[in-house]
Structures are given as C-alpha cells and as structure tokens.
C-alpha cells in the first residue's frame, strides 16, 4: 500500500511536539531555579507546587475534557467560587455536616455543567456564550448567598486543611494532593481506556464524522461539560480546604489559568488532540512560574500573568503551525 512510513512517523511525532516543548521548559525552569536560588532544589518545593495547585489541577483536568471536544468552559472559576461559598454557608451558617455538604456541592457543580452542555448541544449555541452565562449565574449566586467572605471554623474542615501526609525523606503532601492525583488517574483511564474517552477524542476530531459513524455525539458532548462541572466543584471543595473560607471573589480568572494549563500542556484548542499528562505538566509550569517569581523576590506577582500570556502566545503559534499543516 502507498503508506510512507517516514512521513507517518514524522506526522505521528508532530503531535508530541508541544508536550515535548513543555517538558523541556519544565526541566529548564527547574534547573534555572536550582542554580539561581538556594533551597530551590528540594523535593518539598516540587511537592509544594502540587499542594498549592491541587485545585487548579482538578479544574484543568475537567477543562481538558471540554477542550478535547473542541469546546470551552468559561464557567469553571465561578463554579469553584460558588462551591466554596455553598460549603462555607451550609457548614457555618446552617451547621450542616461536612459529609453531607461536600457531596451536595459536587452534585450542584455536576448538574450545572450538565445543564450547560444540554443547552449547548440542543440549541446549537456557542459554548463560550453559554458558559459565560453560567459564569455570571454562578458568581451572582455567590453574592446572593453573601457579599462578604464566610470563614470556616468547622473542625472537620480545619483538620483536613492542616493534615500533612508524611512521605519518606522528611517530605509531606496535603490530602488535597492525593485527591488531585486520584482525579488525574481516573481521568487518564477514562480518556484513554473507555468508550466515553475515545468518543471525546472522536468528537474533537470531527463531529460530523462521529455522527455518521453512529457515535453518541449528544451524550458525549453533554458529558464533557458535566465532567467539567464536577471537576470545578471538586476543585472548589479543595480550595475551601486550602482557604478555609467561602467567597464570591475566590478563583477570579481561574478559567484563564485552566485554559492556559491545557494549552501549554499541548492540547489543541480546536479539539481532538492532546494528553492528560500534558495538562499536569501545564499546571506544573504555571505553578513553577509563580514559585520562581516568589523566589526571585524583587519581581512582582503580576509578572506571572505576563509570562503566562507570553507562553500562551508561543504555544498558540505552535498549535497554529501544527494544525495549519494538517489542514492544508
């Protein structure tokens, strides 16, 4: 047959390019940090990256599902905020037991995602405008609950927040890290080893084809937004542990960080190509930028945004090169 093995290998290799670039970037940033700053080269600095960004990791996993289908979810930051608010309000103001509140919050987030997915699919409205409305709604609901921050003193929450799980070599992680790692593991299996996951990729490759191949397009499309809603609310629960408060202004702009992590992790914004592992690397890159800037000391925190913007620019151009060649 007229297959050209060389061209095939080159093509196949190309989809790993962004992932490779991200890995190199990560190693490079870590090396630079280690050479420049004392105490940078330690396992705990790496683990702190995970501790500080556990909630972002969970949210970015959900975003990966959505972006793989070629969609976008702008509501994640607002759903995270709503989850912190709902948790704090129910636990502190109404004295509900955390074991009841947490599942309830997860259900609320999942249902919100499901409804957005349903509207997007049934009425063929662009995902960005529907999730934008979702964002308004979730932030608005936060404020109808309370304008001010509600801090949490519930013993279960504080215990969870303060727990440190020791690792060999004087290292430790927080329980949130374990949750995040668990989410990544489950999401990896779902994306790469279940029909739902493969349908997500197929949908991102070509919705028209997926339809003609008889795949459950409607179900898959709604499912990814529900997954994203679930991940956002879980991220919200983790953020509640981290901040020990509920506030309508928590996680402002988180949707941008999540999208940036997904893009820097090598997932194409047009859908169909990308890896969950890449998203993990993307989150680490974002975290490492923050760590580097805080180690540097004189650079201000806004450099984080500028650097993330710059990285987004580079990776979007990179994507453009890859997609541009494929389409032509």
């Amino acid at each position, binding site marked *: 047959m007229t297959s050209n093995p060389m061209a095939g290998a080159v093509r196949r290799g190309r989809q790993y390019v962004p992932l490779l670039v991200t890995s190199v970037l990560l190693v490079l940033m870590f090396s630079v940090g280690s050479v420049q700053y004392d105490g940078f080269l330690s396992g705990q600095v790496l683990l702190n990256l995970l501790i500080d960004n556990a909630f972002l990791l969970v949210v970015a996993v959900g975003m990966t599902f959505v972006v793989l289908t070629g969609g976008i979810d702008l509501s994640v930051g607002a759903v995270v905020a709503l989850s912190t608010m709902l948790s704090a309000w129910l636990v502190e103001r109404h004295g509900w037991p955390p074991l009841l509140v947490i599942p309830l919050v997860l259900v609320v987030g999942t249902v919100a995602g499901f409804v957005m997915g349903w509207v997007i699919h049934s009425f063929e409205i662009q995902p960005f405008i529907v999730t934008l409305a979702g964002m308004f709604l979730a932030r608005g609901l936060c404020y109808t609950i309370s304008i001010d921050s509600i801090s949490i003193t519930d013993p279960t929450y504080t215990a969870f927040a303060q727990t440190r799980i020791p690792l060999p070599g004087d290292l430790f992680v927080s329980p949130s890290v374990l949750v995040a790692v668990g989410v990544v593991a489950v999401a990896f299996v779902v994306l790469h080893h*279940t029909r739902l996951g493969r349908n997500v990729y197929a949908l991102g490759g070509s919705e028209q084809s997926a339809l003609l*191949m*008889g795949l459950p397009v409607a179900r898959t499309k709604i499912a990814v937004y529900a997954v994203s809603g679930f991940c956002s609310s879980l991220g919200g629960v983790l953020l509640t542990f981290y901040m020990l408060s509920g506030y309508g202004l928590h996680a402002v702009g988180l949707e941008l960080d999540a999208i940036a992590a997904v893009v820097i992790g090598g997932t194409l914004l047009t859908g*169909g190509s990308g890896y969950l592992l890449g998203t993990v690397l993307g989150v680490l890159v974002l975290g490492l930028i923050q760590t580097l800037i805080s180690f540097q000391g004189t650079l201000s925190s806004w450099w984080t945004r500028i650097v993330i913007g710059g990285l987004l620019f580079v990776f979007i151009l990179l994507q453009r090169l890859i997609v541009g060649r*494929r389409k032509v």
Partner: protein
Amino acid sequence: MPAQSAQQPVLEVRGIRKEFPGVVALDGVDFRLFPGEVHALMGENGAGKSTLIKVLTGVHPSDGGEVVLDGRPVRIAGPLQAQLAGISTVYQEVNLCPNLSVAENILIGREPRRFGLVHWSELRRRAAESVADLDLDIDVSAPLDSYSTAVQQLVAIVRAVEVSAKVLILDEPTSSLDREEVRQLFAVMRRLRDQGVAILFVSHFLDQVYEICDRMTVLLGGRLEGEYLTGELRQVDLVARMIGGEPSDPGEPSDSARREPAEGADAPPFLRADGLARSGAIEPYDLTIRSGEVVGLAGLLGSGRTEAARLLFGADHSTRGSVRIEGAEVSLRTPRTAISHGIAFCPEDRKTEGLIGELTVRENIVLALQAARGWTRPLSGTRQDEIALHWIRALGIRPGNPEALVRNLSGGNQQKVLLARWLITDPKLLILDEPTRGIDVGAKAEIQKLVADLAGDGMSVLFISAELEEVLRLCHRVGVLRDRRLVAELPNDGSLTPESIMATIASGAQS
C-alpha cells in the same frame, strides 16, 4: 456476470418518494441491488442520486414508498440504524476521525473491551485482521491523517465491512484519487463483490463505471429512467439517458439566439489559457476566448467544468500553465486580480458562494463595484439607488424593492441580482456557471437573451451548462469535458447537435 433474475435482491426500494419544500427530489423511484454485484447509480444534478443515498443511509426520512432489506421491509431512522441493518456508506469526504489511529477508526463504537475498559491489543489485532482480510497493508496503530486520502478511503471501507455490511454504498470515492489509487480501490471492490457484498457505486467518471460495474440504474429528474446491464448500454446512450432527450420547450425560441461575433472569428483573443491545470481538479487545458464570443463548456456533472472556470477567475490557484489577457501574461492569484483584469464570475452555488443572504438586493448589486473601489470611496446612497433601480428594471427583478432581503428572492431573481452585480462593473469576460439551473422557464429565457445581447455588444462570455440545447443555442464554440479533461473544442457551425456533443462526451475524443 452474476445472474440476477434467479436471485433475490438484498436491497430493494419500491416507489420511494421524497419531497423538499418546493421540490420533489424523488418521485416513485424503484431500485434493486443484488448480492455480489457492483451497481452504478447514474444521473446529473437534480436527478435524485444523493437524495436516494441519503434515504438509504437514514439521513433523510422518506415521504413514501418502502425499503426492503433481505426480503423484510425496514424503516431506517438514522446512520446508526442503517449500519446496524447492514447498509454502510463511504462518502467522498472521508467521514472518519483524522486524529485517531487507523485501528480505532475501524472499530470505534464497537471496541472490544475487558473489565469495561478498551482492550487495546485485541482492538489492534482485530483491526489488523480486517485490514489483512482485504489484502491491504496498512499500519493500524498509525494515526489516520498520516495516510493519503486514498488509504483513508480504504480504511473507511474496512470499517464499513467490519460492521458486516451486506450493502456497501460508495459515494464518489474516486474523485480525489489518482490512477494507481483507483486501481487499488477497484481491487478491493472486486474482492468484496466476490465475497457476496452488494456495492452501490456512484462516480462521475464514465470509464470507471464501465470498468467496474455490472449493472447501472439511471435517474433523471427524480424519476427512474431505467436499469441496464453495463455491457448492453453504449456510453453514448448512457449519456443521452442521463441528460435526457427532452425536446426543447415549445415556449422557448427554437432558433439560435447567438449572433455572429462582432469582429468575426479572427478577432484577437481576449483571454488565452495555455496548459492551465490544477492537480486533482482539472487536467491541463488550452482555451481561447475572443471578444464578443460566447464559449460554452459542456460535460457531465463533475467533469471539471467548474474547476476549469474557477482557475480563470483566480478562485483556485492553478498548479501549472499560464494565462494571457489581451496578449499580456497575467498571474490570476486571487479573484481580486481577475476582477481588475475585467473578469466576472457568477458561481453555480448562488447561496453559499454568490449572495450575502442577509443583505438587501441593492447592497448585493453594488457589492462588486464597491469592493473594487475600496471602502474609502463609497458610492453615494442616491447613486446606489439609481443603480439598483436601473438594473431591477432592466432585468425585471421581482420584487422590485431594492431594500428587500436577497435571501427571500426566488432562484431566478437571485441569479439576476448576481448578473446585475457583475454587469455594473462592465466586465470584458463574464463567466457564468450554470446560470439557468433551478430557475423558471421565463427567467431562463430572459437570461439567455441577455447573454446573447451582451456578446453582441462585444463582451466575452464563458457559459457553463449541463443543458446541451441551451449551450448550442447560445455558444459560438463548445469545449467538451470528460473525466476532468477538456477533450474537444467544437465550432458551433450549424452541424453541431446535442447528439454529437453526447457522442464526444461518451467517447472522450473528437468525432
């Protein structure tokens, strides 16, 4: 040659009917398909081919008649149901996911699973087996888009067969394949036929149809024209049946509307194309168009008529050859450059390529002139109204309101708006692609008269039409295309008849 009469058809369609608003696309069509045959479905634009395929694959529900599969009437509710019932389709645009591996594309939706998870090694093994079954050599773990369209086409067939297709519909699978790739495809088709699969083959290439098909069904204007054994129908007869030997409408002028070119046959050429080609679309062709001359392009649907014209307008890039306008070589890279050289183009698909539906008649009419002037040199409101009203009157556009939205106009009036748009730019060459298709008889006659008048005033016209009577009535010369090749250029000197053009299309050579 399989003997059908003794066998029961695997698929039979009886009296199928399908209406769209304002059009009867299929009008009581019968069709049968036997196991172990390759059957061609032939017909021109509007014959109902694609509607029939869409009904069979469950994309459109039928409005009447029945589909019988293996002796039992079935109702096909969607693509999935069609596949489950044993009818699989491979489209011209490969409908697979380019980002997934070949193996996944073959088996997605039916992946083998273990403990609820996709069993990858089994998936690859089964896919490789299916590929080997058809004697193909494709690495199933490679992503689909690392292969050429031809291989992707074959993968689509492997998928279709894997779903255990009794009926395989191939909708223009060869349109973008080269000769060698077509040979490979045919080898696979023959193999499947020998395994007892019934194959419905749609192609614009007559040679291919005659090479691979056992029987053919011809549709004409939404009705069954006839069913023939390939060996018993000469190509020229097939062409005649596809185009339809209707006598010309008594309401139309039967005499020639064309006039002698103002400057005679030896007038200097306005445009000359030498060896112009675009790979995969049209083979190299030479064409000369003189001032005041109407040159026709005749050929079946998909023969390369539109593709040839688009190169002259810069709508597509040519991959070789050159164009001279009034003797000077020009590079027609974009429509804008072609327009600046005095070329205008009314595309075949008015809705998607011609009109801006949500703008008004006036705005659509002035658009080309305004685009040429640039946005900083606007036509004044009164000037626009003048132009619009003038052309609405001159061409009899109805409704006569320049502020009506163009998408609400009938086909014939939309075509006149397009003509008006270009006529105000005062072009030297007007390219008309199927300008009279799908419009009523009155508007058709008006447009034909207009073309003749314009040529009489010295404008060159390239006139593309599937209707041979129309071409003969208007054109001074006729280029005949077949299988993406300009096979002949015939002077319309009075001896040219629809039959002789058909013979040229059928034989592929100047007779």
